[in-house]
């Protein structure tokens, strides 16, 4: 691909020619980080290195600059030290992988020895409850669901109260996919957030699930979802595909929202903690063992 060839070219000792700068910019754009960020990066590299640095110098500076775009926020999922249960809301636009991520996170937390309950808070989409039920049974986790069309905030509230009664550590809350332009659905999300906060649990995470194939609309998604639900972190799904997920870097650098987890497939264990160094390496096509 273009990334690998970029870096193999940058391995040579020859100075970088003007065309190489164009290709570098195009490579960055191809990752979906957007023309603005890509342009800024190229300008900054030229400022640091002059117009014709050695390939080696460019390579090092590029990696360092990309890595500096990430924020310092904690990448570990946060849990409450005192309240029980900790509540994790999973939100995002349609079809990004929210429900699948819930299944994967449930499995991860169970393996860590935490007791988990799932709230089937998507009461809208056809067979959403059924889907979440399959994931729950795969992981042996209890799921609480409402009738189709039921108020999602109540389903989530009831699940949290039930989890508290039986002493679960964590409640993972599925929500229906919603485009950030749908005002009524974003109001519904605010209500979910509010009602969950009033429950006897503590909302410790609001995870925004972003599909790695997403282009520049990801920035709007982050902005609006963050405004409505105080997002605490990003889950970047479908990174097992050919898309690089560069918009997640743009989101992290613009809104300071840490990418916490990445989805790498459709199976229970296809979830990994986010590693900025490995992400940058993949973005620019460096060979890596990670």
């Amino acid at each position, binding site marked *: 691909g273009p990334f690998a060839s970029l870096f193999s070219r940058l391995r040579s000792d020859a100075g970088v020619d003007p065309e190489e700068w164009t290709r570098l910019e195009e490579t960055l754009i191809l990752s979906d980080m957007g023309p603005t960020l890509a342009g800024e990066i190229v300008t900054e590299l030229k400022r640091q290195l002059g117009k014709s640095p050695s390939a080696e110098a460019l390579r090092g500076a590029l990696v360092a600059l990309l890595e500096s775009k990430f924020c310092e926020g904690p990448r570990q999922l946060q849990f409450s030290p005192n309240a029980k249960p900790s509540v994790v809301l999973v939100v995002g636009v349609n079809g990004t992988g929210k429900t699948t991520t819930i299944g994967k996170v449930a499995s991860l937390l169970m393996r860590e020895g935490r007791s988990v309950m799932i709230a089937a808070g998507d009461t809208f*989409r056809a067979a959403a409850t059924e889907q979440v039920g399959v994931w729950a049974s795969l992981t042996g986790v209890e799921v609480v669901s409402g009738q189709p069309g039921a108020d999602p905030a109540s389903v989530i509230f009831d699940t949290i109260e039930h989890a508290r009664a039986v002493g679960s550590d964590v409640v993972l809350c599925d929500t229906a996919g919603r485009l950030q332009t749908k005002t009524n659905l974003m109001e519904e999300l605010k209500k979910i957030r509010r009602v969950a906060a009033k429950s006897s649990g503590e909302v410790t995470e609001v995870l925004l699930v972003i*599909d790695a194939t997403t282009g520049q609309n990801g920035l709007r998604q982050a902005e609006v979802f963050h405004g409505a639900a105080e997002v605490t972190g990003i889950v970047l799904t479908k990174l097992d595909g050919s898309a690089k997920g560069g918009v997640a870097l743009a989101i992290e650098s613009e809104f300071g929202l840490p990418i916490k987890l990445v989805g790498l497939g459709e199976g229970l264990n296809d979830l990994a903690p986010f590693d900025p160094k490995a992400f940058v390496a993949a973005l620019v096509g460096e060979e890596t063992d990670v």
Partner: protein
Amino acid sequence: MFETLGERLEGALSRIRGKTRLTQADVDEALGEIRRALLEADVNIGVVNLISERVGAAAVGAMTSPSLTPGQQVVKAVHNELIDVLGQETYRIRFASTPPTVLLLAGLQGSGKTTAAAKLALLLRRQGRSPYLVAADLARPGAVRQLEILGAQAGVPVFSEPSTPVEVATKGVAEARRLARDVVIIDTAGRLAIDDALMDEVSQIQKATQAHLRFLVIDAMIGQDAVVTARAFDERLELSAVILTKLDGDARGGAALSVKEVVGKPIAFASVGEKLEDFEPFYPDRMASRILGMGDVLSLIERA
């Protein structure tokens, strides 16, 4: 969040107002803004390069016209070029001379295939056809149930059985024939373009069913990867057309241009919501406006 192309061009070109000769720098600046607008709309960079060349000449022409609003003239010229790329005609399904017409839907995970299958079924039923849905996604949890629920809402029967995707599809077509249904719509599992095993599977479904029409379902929010996806699915399935989904959001939808340019197949339908009625023919002119920054383009053009 993004300034529209019109606004940016007005800024960039305000200097040339009243000039009798354009400098290369004026032209480059305008072309740069056009490029940027297309990239912010997620048009693939390779496609942007191709389109910029094509658009370039028209844009220069517009800039040299004795207009007081060179920016608007350029937007209008670019808009026309985009419509040309997207294609002028609305798509019509060509039904097989011997029914049933078999229609296969494929695409990435979560792009909207199952929903589109039911929407298409409803549309065809309302046009007096007797469609039949086949649930050939046995991978995703709850996929069959999802199609059954949506099929019931659409008033269209759904065939399913717990065998293999190829078998379900084959039997589904046979069953449709037996029941004298005239269109079969096969829903398939989501798959990545680089997943060889699953790409083999969908091409086997295609071979086994001899699907007359193969539709790629693609999410309007997709970024630069749209071309990789479209090319890969086209290589395996020889796509007939594309369905663009989730156009009810605010994604500019540059994928429409990318896909059209790369696979050269028409965009047949636009999916514009989660309800089964939210499905309409694709209008290239509206899409061109959207890619360039929505309704304000039309008003700009009216003023131009």
